[in-house]
């Protein structure tokens, strides 16, 4: 660090905001270190604490942590978040380009790298635009003003007469200064001001935000470019494979590694406690050696899991910490009708199409790890602890992987690679998991039981809502080495720390437990049960999918007993929320929803609707679907889906559509197909044949997404907005198609056939 004008040196009573407010004297603070050095030391002034900085500027307030411009005018934007197929590499560039006033193509983006970027934790919870996008937006707008002020000084004109556009600061007389000419010294190495100081572009003048620009990553991905960590091949790299135990808690009783070490290309076998790996020159040599090593390994196994068939009854009976989320008693008439309902979701897989991959190299005392997981800084902690190195000796760099949808095997594969690389210094080690590794060892989305007791009065208004969710933890992310499989497996290894529930409003298994509807009496309990009989962690939306499935199924059941149309029933309980109302109305209108035309006809074709606002604070989404049920087989055919989404300021409309559409299709797959199968000892879903997912022949005939733009309002996370409503909308459509309500997921053909009794 060589900067001389750190904002920390600014006199505390003379904030840059005050300078701005006092009109134009800003040049002092930004362009001339002399001027700053001459500023008198002001006495500390007791002032109200400044408002928190917007987005992730809160954790990293320096503007040049986010935006850097070199003397050649090259613009680099840095984010602590990562691309996981959600399109943020493109959207974050759009935000930066818009507020800097530069062409989109001139922005280079660096994603999470512990040596270069801000620590923004995990890329999770649909928060990239909200956290990083907001930080970049304000950093860019403030950087632009800094450069304009410098230009004004250079040109001897009033800053108000200058504009930043197309990568230049342009004067009224047409004179243009390139940004590179303005950035001498450390002019961006200053602390950001609060949001009120940012001169954000007027949404009406947006040139890049709000446009469906094409994703920057897709051309490489469709032409065979090196787009993924799987395509990363550092010079001299060796291939490693890990032989994982056949079941949770299995102990390696014996293995004869001598013969394996003599196989073609094999460079080594590592055995440490229950950790077993083989390293070879060529990838297929590693695969063959791994197969032989697996055959040679003898494991002792114990039955540790409950019976799958009775899991839904087993779960609520387990030890629990009952966490009250809401307990409100209000005025409401006695209910005229009540319902007491129970819903179930099984364990779900992330099911990445590409098994996890990690690359690591330990050289000259430094460990470098390339990983495709969601948090490079937490992974850095895990690896440092695992190999007992100081944190500053471990660098973690994100490279894109196959879609992960949460905490899949990616952190584990990276930790595997780091551990093996540490044992074989100098050589880059690539660990590619096999299909069964991913299926059997990724941490699943936990099984859940949801109980709803609800009443309505004679007018069909909700009187009370009593809801309990029963579920395991929804996060065992790193953290420490104890969160990784290798850390748990080695001799004198590490233990998973006792998981804790995340508090509302994000929540964990209780995510989206708060119904969006107006109700006088509300009691909500999150029964936190970290039994961890199966390995579990964060899967897209955590508890949101299941809670919304239960809430929105129950709302449909209540509408049915009230004899009301499901859309109208929802709307009359949403009058307090105009954006929610707009969203439901738009989905219904675009779908062609006809009140009263859909209720429980049982003729094999049905329509269903559902709504939620993700986490109660992110994107709004309503989904209407039509399904058809084959009366002979019970097979659910997806006919069409129509969604409305409100994500606040829309950065990339097609990006939002893609996320909502993908969420709908993935959720449809969860809903009609998916459950992890297991016996008392082993997980049985070891490949796609035992964990079927939606195929092309089964997708909707059409999926339509209608985006409501709210320019100038905060970004609202979208990536996990549509899964909950979709599951419930399918459940509701299935009811209207068959006259039967199915409350246990998934809606497989045999289950539906049994329910309709044909």
């Amino acid at each position, binding site marked *: 660090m060589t900067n001389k004008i750190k904002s920390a040196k600014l006199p505390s009573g003379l904030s840059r905001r005050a300078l701005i407010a006092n009109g134009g004297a800003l040049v002092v603070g930004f362009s001339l270190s002399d001027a700053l050095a001459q500023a008198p030391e002001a006495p500390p002034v007791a002032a109200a604490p400044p408002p928190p900085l917007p987005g992730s500027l809160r954790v990293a307030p320096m503007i040049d942590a986010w935006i850097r411009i070199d003397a050649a005018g090259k613009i680099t934007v840095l984010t602590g978040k990562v691309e996981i197929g959600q399109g943020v590499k493109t959207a974050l560039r759009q935000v930066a380009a818009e507020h800097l006033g530069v062409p989109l193509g001139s922005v280079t983006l660096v994603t999470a790298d512990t040596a270069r970027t801000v620590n923004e934790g995990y890329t999770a919870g649909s928060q990239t635009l909200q956290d990083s996008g907001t930080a970049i937006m304000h950093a860019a707008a403030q950087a632009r003003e800094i450069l304009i002020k410098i230009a004004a000084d250079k040109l001897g004109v009033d800053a108000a007469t200058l504009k930043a556009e197309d990568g230049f600061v342009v004067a009224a007389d047409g004179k243009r200064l390139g940004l590179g000419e303005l950035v001498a010294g450390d002019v961006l190495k200053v602390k950001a001001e609060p949001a009120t100081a940012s001169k954000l572009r007027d949404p009406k003048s947006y040139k890049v935000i709000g446009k469906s620009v094409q994703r920057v990553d897709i051309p490489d991905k469709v032409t065979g470019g090196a787009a993924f960590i799987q395509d990363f091949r550092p010079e001299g790299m060796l291939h490693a494979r890990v032989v994982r135990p056949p079941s949770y808690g299995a102990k390696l009783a014996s293995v004869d590694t001598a013969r394996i070490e003599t196989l073609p290309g094999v460079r080594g076998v590592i055995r440490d406690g229950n950790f077993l790996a083989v390293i070879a020159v060529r990838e297929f040599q590693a695969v063959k050696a791994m197969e032989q090593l697996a055959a040679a390994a003898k494991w002792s196994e114990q039955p540790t899991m409950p019976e799958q068939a009775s899991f839904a009854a087993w779960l609520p009976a387990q030890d629990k910490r009952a966490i009250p989320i809401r307990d409100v008693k209000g005025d409401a008439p006695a209910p005229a009708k009540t319902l007491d309902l129970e819903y179930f979701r099984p364990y779900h897989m992330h099911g990445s199409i590409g098994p996890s991959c990690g690359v690591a190299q330990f050289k000259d005392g430094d460990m470098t790890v390339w990983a495709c997981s969601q948090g490079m800084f937490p992974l850095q902690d895990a690896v440092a602890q695992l190999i007992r190195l100081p944190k500053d000796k471990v660098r973690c760099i994100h490279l894109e992987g*196959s879609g992960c949808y949460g905490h899949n095997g990616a952190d584990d594969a990276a930790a595997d690679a780091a551990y093996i690389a540490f044992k074989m210094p100098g050589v880059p080690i690539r660990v590619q998991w096999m299909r069964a590794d991913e299926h059997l060892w990724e941490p699943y989305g936990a099984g859940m039981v949801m109980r709803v007791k609800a009443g309505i009065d004679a007018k069909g208004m909700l009187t009370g809502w009593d809801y309990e969710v029963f579920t395991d933890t929804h996060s065992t992310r790193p953290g420490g080495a104890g969160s990784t499989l290798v850390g748990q497996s080695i001799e004198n290894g590490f233990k998973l720390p006792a998981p804790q529930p995340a508090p509302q409003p994000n929540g964990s298994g209780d995510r989206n437990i708060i119904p969006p509807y107006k109700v006088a009496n509300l009691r909500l309990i999150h029964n936190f049960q970290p039994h961890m009989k199966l390995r579990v962690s964060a899967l897209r939306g955590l508890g949101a999918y299941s809670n919304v499935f239960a809430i929105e199924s129950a709302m449909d059941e209540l509408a049915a007993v009230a004899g009301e149309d499901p859309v109208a029933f929802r709307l009359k309980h949403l009058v307090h929320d105009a954006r929610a109302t707009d969203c439901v109305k738009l989905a219904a209108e675009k779908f062609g929803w006809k009140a009263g035309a859909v209720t429980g006809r049982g003729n094999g074709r049905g329509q269903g609707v559902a709504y939620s606002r993700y986490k109660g604070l992110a994107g709004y989404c309503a989904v209407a679907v039509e399904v058809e049920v084959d009366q002979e087989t019970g097979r659910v055919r997806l006919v069409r889906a129509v969604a409305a989404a409100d994500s606040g300021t829309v950065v990339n409309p097609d990006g939002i559509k893609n996320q909502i559409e993908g969420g709908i299709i993935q959720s449809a797959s969860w809903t009609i197909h998916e459950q992890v199968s297991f016996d008392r000892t082993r997980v049985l879903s070891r490949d796609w044949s035992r964990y079927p997912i939606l195929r092309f022949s089964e997708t909707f005939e059409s999926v339509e997404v209608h985006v409501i733009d709210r320019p100038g309002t905060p970004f609202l996370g979208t990536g996990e907005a549509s899964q909950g409503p979709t599951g419930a909308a399918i459940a509701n459509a299935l009811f209207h198609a068959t006259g039967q309500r199915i409350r246990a997921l998934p809606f497989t053909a045999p289950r539906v056939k049994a329910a309709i009794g044909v």
Partner: protein
Amino acid sequence: MAKLSINGRAVEVDVEADTPLLYVLRDDLKMNGAKFGCGLGQCGACTVLVDDKAVFSCMVPVSVLEGRKVTTLEGLGTIDKPGPLQRAFIEEQAAQCGYCTAGILMRAEGLLRENRRPTDAQIRERLSANLCRCGTHNRVIKAVKRAAEYLRTAATTDSNRT
């Protein structure tokens, strides 16, 4: 030693005869198009064409490929000059993570080499050998139809020229 024809180029690789084509493409030839997904012929991420037919390259040992023509994603075009399917996938933004996309594109290529006027049902049926997890199915179907249109238009233009 295996002699192969990859995207019209003759190559010789020194590998054991049971090595699946996928590993030769990725490991020996450093090509990125074909992806490892399952190694079991269940997901299609590794799909390439052998003599115009889509195959799972994770299941085909190199020893059976002598004298046959292998086409991979790299054979359909480049980032500067993308082929019709590649163009259509970019234009429809028919990807999220994009990992499965390469294999899907190759299976679609196999279909379009047989049939330049595939119906939605034919596209859905054919692509069902491939899995996508992000939920890009409907965009992919649109992209394949768009590519078919490009091919038909190109064919018409060509025949007008001759």
